[in-house]
């Protein structure tokens, strides 16, 4: 840290953070893991060996073999292919829902921090109300009556996951609001909207990035949890969550571990990778945090 501070060149704080991130061993490990998972999911059609939804009753319930790397399920679909394609869906839900929650969180947190007063009061109390429930409780309740579908799952998760982000953004904006460049912009008569998004947001981006990684994790886990309880991604689309759900039927749990271990391990690895990355990001952005 000292060397960087002493370096004669003016380096942006975000760049410094990147340098620290690159040297964080867990962050690097996590990034590599995550990139592998991402490639497997993105290029699922390249790596798969069968159509993920193609069933073949004659080949049902087969243990792993050279024909089927991870075996087949109860209607003869290839688990390897479904795990890859399931990853696509799970990650899509993870990213999209995290994005939705970021957008809502940034807008509400920004408004709250910038305007203060009763706007702040109202938004923060609303945040308190939403935070009173563990997400899965409230989402499960709503999920049962809005119906199944990938979009529904994305929006449900996104719309109930923003409070953390909102608080983060509010805190940042609150501290920046009094900074000179903001006050200067205000005195020049810049519109509030412009000030918030042009002057304040760029400084909020870095901490947001760290919180985004955790939001993705949260969303992937929520999707899996909801699908596990039977209200997530509808059939026949595979997702890690609804593949794992088959383990709730006893013959699969007992006699077909190949059907549920792959998605379980993928969820675990994915969450682990993102936690590594998130941890690295947090350490990188907040040097005091490294001990």
């Amino acid at each position, binding site marked *: 840290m000292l060397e960087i501070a002493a370096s004669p060149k003016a380096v942006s704080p975000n760049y410094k953070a990147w340098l620290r991130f690159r040297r964080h061993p867990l962050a690097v490990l996590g990034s590599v893991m995550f990139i592998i998972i991402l490639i497997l999911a993105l290029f699922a059609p390249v790596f798969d060996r069968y159509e993920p939804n193609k069933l073949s009753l004659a080949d049902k319930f087969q243990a792993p073999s050279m024909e089927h790397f991870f075996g087949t399920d109860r209607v003869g679909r290839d688990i390897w292919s479904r795990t890859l394609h399931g990853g696509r869906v799970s990650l899509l839900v993870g990213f999209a829902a995290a994005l939705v929650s970021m957008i809502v969180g940034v807008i509400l947190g920004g408004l709250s921090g910038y305007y203060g007063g009763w706007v702040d009061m109202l938004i923060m109390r609303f945040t308190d109300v939403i935070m009173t429930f563990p997400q899965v*409780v409230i989402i499960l309740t709503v999920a049962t009556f809005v119906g199944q579908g990938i979009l529904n799952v994305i929006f449900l998760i996104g719309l109930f996951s923003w409070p953390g982000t909102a608080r983060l953004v509010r805190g940042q904006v609150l501290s920046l609001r009094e900074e000179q460049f903001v006050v200067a912009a205000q005195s020049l008569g810049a519109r509030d909207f412009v000030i918030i998004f042009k002057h304040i947001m760029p400084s909020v981006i870095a901490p947001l990035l760290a919180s985004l990684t955790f939001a993705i994790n949260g969303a992937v886990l929520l999707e899996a949890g909801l699908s*596990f309880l039977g209200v997530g991604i509808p059939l026949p689309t595979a997702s890690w969550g609804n593949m794992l759900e088959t383990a709730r039927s006893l013959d699969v749990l007992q006699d077909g571990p190949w059907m549920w271990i792959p998605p379980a391990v993928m969820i675990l690895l994915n969450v682990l990778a993102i936690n590594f990355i998130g941890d690295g990001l947090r350490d990188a952005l907040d040097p005091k945090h490294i*001990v």
Partner: protein
Amino acid sequence: MQYFLRRLLINIPVFFAVTLLIYGLINLAPGDPIDFFVNEEVGISRADLAFLEEQFGLNDPFIVRYGKWLSNTFRGDLGFRFKNGDDVAEVLRERLQRTLILMGGALSVSIVGGVLLGVFIGMRQYSFWDFALTGLSFVGISMPAFIAGIFGLYLFSVKLGWLPSGGMRTIGVPPTLLDLLYHMILPAGTLAILQLATFMRYTRFSVLEIKQADFIRTAKAKGLPDYQVTWRHMVRNAILPVVTVIGLSLPTLVAGALFTETIYSWPGMGSLFVDAVLVRDYPMVMGIMLVIALVVLLANLLTDLAYGLVDPRIRFE
């Protein structure tokens, strides 16, 4: 104290907003007691449906129904379950107790284990144990309850047959504490994993921070024996901030209980909630949400109080 009172006052409107949210959400949903009178395999005619709807008087406006529900709720009357007419409040008391047993077990295991291990590795930074346990703690915090639960069930119950697959006691014999503990190992263990890892990480971090603190150096300089420095000065001070984390872990525990209880058929509030939501037994759903909200709000308050005690500066904020 003033700070605490202020937090308490803020929480009152929040609580009312929570009740409105619960009632409003449930009102958007279809479903009423009639569902439990209809046999889908036989079907029901429109005339019969109308007959039943009138019987149950389901046609008041929203505000009236909300007001009725709220005033009943304050009198401790949470209504009756659609499913079988049980008194919701009564069922909840029983179920909550069982969930608290489970959560209490998980929480004690994770606090004791987490703090001890945290101190242990905190004192040995960069040792083999530090790396091993820190690594494991990452797996721990990445392990959702439904995966830990399924693995636990598969390994210890289905494959090895060491532990019961569910329930909270052996039916048919008088209940004993040991029998309860025996049934608790898997579900409480599942629930504890994530918390244990979290507490361990916090303790470790806190120990590392305290190690640098001036008063520790002073104590060492005074020539106090190592163990005394460790236990009397360091650990005590290191644990205090961890105490505040416990309150914040409650929502996670509740969410975990939902899955854990479902997987191990633990007859608590979590499995009841999943059941009730899936069959739309709304009085029950609302009752449980209310209890969860109360518990979380209370935990937040206590956490605030604990913060205040640990860090006096907060009072002047």
